[in-house]
């Protein structure tokens, strides 16, 4: 079938380095000595642990329960004993720790009971629930919980379901091997997505450097009698970015501020479709995934790896060369060096690359930007990276937002082509995190301000209420007095004069006496203080020597002489005095 393909602007062609790891079929990685399963393995909430140290778990048993709609459950990758639920280092650029369930395998690989189900007997709600409880998340690397993407927009008709088998990052071949070896299950998984979303078309995009995978997928689609279209897209990084693949296959451009369903299109990775099928039809939660091990190793290969396997242990299978000095998780364009070799494989781990200086030479020194525009030509989102760089560097974050920094997908094309070797993506990450931090600070400050203003409001209200109360009481008092006065007015006037006139006099006299006494006390105190001060204050003329006294006298006498002669020229007199 001939299909009209669209182009996205920009993109780069790094050496693909894929042939090394496709020579051998997928191998099953042996059970590691222990498994460290992080509870937070998807975008969204952090699952709550439901096991504790000492518990015995079966393979596929729930160990972390989803804590919200955008959250996915986590399961024991094998049977064994829970050693601990504790904080452990994570495969994340930050190197921060997170809560993990540590399991010691018992070697039996004892599964929980699994039921084979025909998913067509389930309601869509049940299917989504099962995907969530099986921990199915986007395995392309973004790990967004899959069930959350399986509801079509109510207002926009679902036109296309795009299945991402592009795999554009160099070195990574796990999706390629998955499609070659397990195409049928991938296609069945796509069938589930299709049934839930009811799109008009299903398009499976595969980069044209994977003809075997495309052929296997075509064969599977035909064998299963589906009407999915397998499309070979040009090999151009980042064609495997969801937005780029959607653009290439449908011509639609999903801006940063919109979700793809708003444009009637949804996108899933092939590996996600595979795990969805295993989860729904076979009751198998996501406890393993395919990982490419490549780079500075003797035997690059794809392995089926249990989630939680320490990376260092896994890397040994491919026999890294002795000069290996680190592990990159993900591809060379967007991956990162993991903080240490003990961090575990997680659902987002599609590739481990043994790092060495021979493979990835250290970067040359950063030169000034010469505005050559290569970055803008390479940017698949058609941004102006050199402008963003300029404003990020100047910490002019408002301008970076004007130049759409949040549309940057951090694909690394700009850094790749920069002749000045400027790590542009790092500048953009910095700017984004600063903007977020400021946003948080601003929100916190706004909340504090709101609290303060509310407190002020409350204080004022209380004051007003109090004043009102007092006023009421005073009014009542006045009314009472008025009533009394009215009552008294009825009595003879002389009576009032007699009783009122003498009363003030004693009061005044008392006050005067009081004041006099106080004044006297104060005066006495002041006098005392003065005496004390005079006694204490040093007088520098008191202890002068005879010579000093003589000099002083002389000066005094001169002053006396000078005083009348003030009108005369003072010069000679002054000199004489010396």
């Amino acid at each position, binding site marked *: 079938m001939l299909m009209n393909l669209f182009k996205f602007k920009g993109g780069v062609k790094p050496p693909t380095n894929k042939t090394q790891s496709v020579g051998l079929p997928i191998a099953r990685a042996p059970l590691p000595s222990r498994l460290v399963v992080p509870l937070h393995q998807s975008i969204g909430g952090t699952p709550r642990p439901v096991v504790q140290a000492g518990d015995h778990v079966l393979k596929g048993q729930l160990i972390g329960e989803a804590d919200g709609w955008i959250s996915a459950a986590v399961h024991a990758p094998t049977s064994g004993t829970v050693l601990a639920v504790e904080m452990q280092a994570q495969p994340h650029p930050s190197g921060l720790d997170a809560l993990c369930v540590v399991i010691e395998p018992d070697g039996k690989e004892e599964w929980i009971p699994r039921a084979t189900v025909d998913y067509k007997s389930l309601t869509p709600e049940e299917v989504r629930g099962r995907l969530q409880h099986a921990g199915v998340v986007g395995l392309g690397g973004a790990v967004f919980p899959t069930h959350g993407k399986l509801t079509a927009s109510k207002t926009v008709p679902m036109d296309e379901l795009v299945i991402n088998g592009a795999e554009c990052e160099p070195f990574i071949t796990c999706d390629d091997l998955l499609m070659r070896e397990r195409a049928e299950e991938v296609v069945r998984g796509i069938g589930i997505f299709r049934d839930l979303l009811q799109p008009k078309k299903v398009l499976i995009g595969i980069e044209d450097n994977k003809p075997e995978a495309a052929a296997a997928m075509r064969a599977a689609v035909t064998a299963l009698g589906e009407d999915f279209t397998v499309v070979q897209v040009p090999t151009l990084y980042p064609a495997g970015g969801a937005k780029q693949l959607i653009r290439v296959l449908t011509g639609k451009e999903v801006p940063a501020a919109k979700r793809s369903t708003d444009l009637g299109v949804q996108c899933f990775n092939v590996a996600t479709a595979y795990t969805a099928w295993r989860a729904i039809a076979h009751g198998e939660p996501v406890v393993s995934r395919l990982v490419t091990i490549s780079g500075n190793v003797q035997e690059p290969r794809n392995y089926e790896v249990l989630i939680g396997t320490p990376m260092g242990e896994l890397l040994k299978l491919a026999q890294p060369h002795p000069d290996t000095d680190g592990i990159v998780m993900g591809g060379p364009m967007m991956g990162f060096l993991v903080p240490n070799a003990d961090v575990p494989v997680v659902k987002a781990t599609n590739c481990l*690359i043994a790092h060495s200086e021979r493979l990835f030479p250290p970067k040359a020194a950063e030169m000034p930007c010469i505005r050559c*525009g290569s970055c803008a030509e390479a940017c698949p989102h058609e941004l102006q990276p050199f402008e963003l760089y300029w404003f990020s560097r100047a910490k002019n974050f408002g301008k970076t937002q004007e130049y759409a920094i949040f549309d940057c997908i951090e694909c690394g094309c700009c850094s790749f082509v920069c002749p000045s070797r400027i790590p542009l993506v790092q500048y953009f990450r910095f700017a984004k995190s600063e903007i977020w931090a400021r946003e948080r600070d601003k929100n916190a400050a706004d909340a504090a301000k709101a609290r303060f203003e509310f407190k002020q409001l409350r204080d004022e209200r209380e004051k007003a209420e109090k004043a009102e109360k007092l006023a009421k009481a005073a009014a009542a008092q006045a009314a009472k007095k008025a009533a009394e006065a009215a009552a008294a007015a009825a009595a003879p006037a002389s009576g009032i004069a007699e009783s009122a006139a003498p009363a003030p006099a004693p009061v005044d006299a008392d006050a005067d006496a009081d004041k006099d006494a106080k004044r006297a006390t104060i005066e006495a105190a002041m006098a005392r203080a003065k005496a004390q001060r005079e006694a204490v204050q040093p007088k520098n003329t008191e202890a002068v020597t005879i010579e000093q006294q003589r000099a002083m006298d002389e000066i005094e006498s001169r002053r006396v002489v000078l005083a009348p002669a003030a009108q005369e020229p003072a010069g000679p007199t002054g000199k004489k005095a010396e």
Partner: protein
Amino acid sequence: MFAPAPYLLKDISVSQVMTQVCIALIPGIAAYAWLIGPAILAQLVIATLAALLAEAAMLRVQRKPLAMFLADGSAIVTAWLIALTFPPLAPWWLVVTGTVFAIVVAKHLYGGLGQNPFNPAMVAFAICIVAFPALMSQWPVVGLQQGLIEQINIIFGFSPRLDALSSATPLDALKTSLKLGEGTVDVARLLANQDIFGNFAGRGWEWVAAGYLLGGLWLLQRRLITWHVPVAFIGALALISGALWLYNPAQFASPLFHLFSGGAMIGAFFIATDPVSGCTTPRGKLIFGAGAGLLAYIIRVFGGYPDGVAFAVLLMNLSAPLIDLLTQPPIFGMKDKA
């Protein structure tokens, strides 16, 4: 150790970019040395040395790493453009003055590599033609019967600067003749003078310009420059010269003459395409190139200077930031809104 992604980098550096620009100038230089005179080779050496020394001194003053910045090649590109736009028999000190001014003032006083708002080579040309108009308009008679040594002697002042050696550029000759003999001479008759004018532009110079064109096309093919600036520059120059030529062919030279005279070709491919001082958005580059082409023609034909490329480029440099600001392209997914 914690180097950030991407770990793979394209094999390209600033010095490689600059080196390729120099390589692209070689066909033009070869034609220049062959047809106009080998003195240009001496001028290239003089300008290069002056530029490197000035660059080194300025880097020293600013305590910037010497080796790294000297190796970037940007000073050499500036030096070569200065040597190629100055008269080939100009005294050595004139070239040195221009080059030092370009590097010290136009480049480093504005912050160095990547920061200069004006094209340093064109600043040098403008300063020198304003300060030393006579020396800057002494162009050699084509077909000079002198060897390299004799030409070098003239450059260094060991031989007398004979008036008979120099003449105006073809552009200047045409303009002056047309102005002097207003109404009595026409372009066709003037161009028939084969001592100055060749087949389609200045004698000899037309082939130098063709050499620059060749190098420029190579730069395009290498994707070191985009098509926008050269096409807009040449297009605008051809359009306005073509229109006036059609209007009065006796008074205005043909587009072909203008495209292959003076600094048109080197300007279109090597000077107006300078990314640091030019525009960077695609539409901005079109405006920049067209503006430079248009201004170059106006200054050439109606202005007081024989060639207008330097002033045209400098004027467009002035407006580049605003043009860039106003021509931001819409980004991915936002095209319908823009």
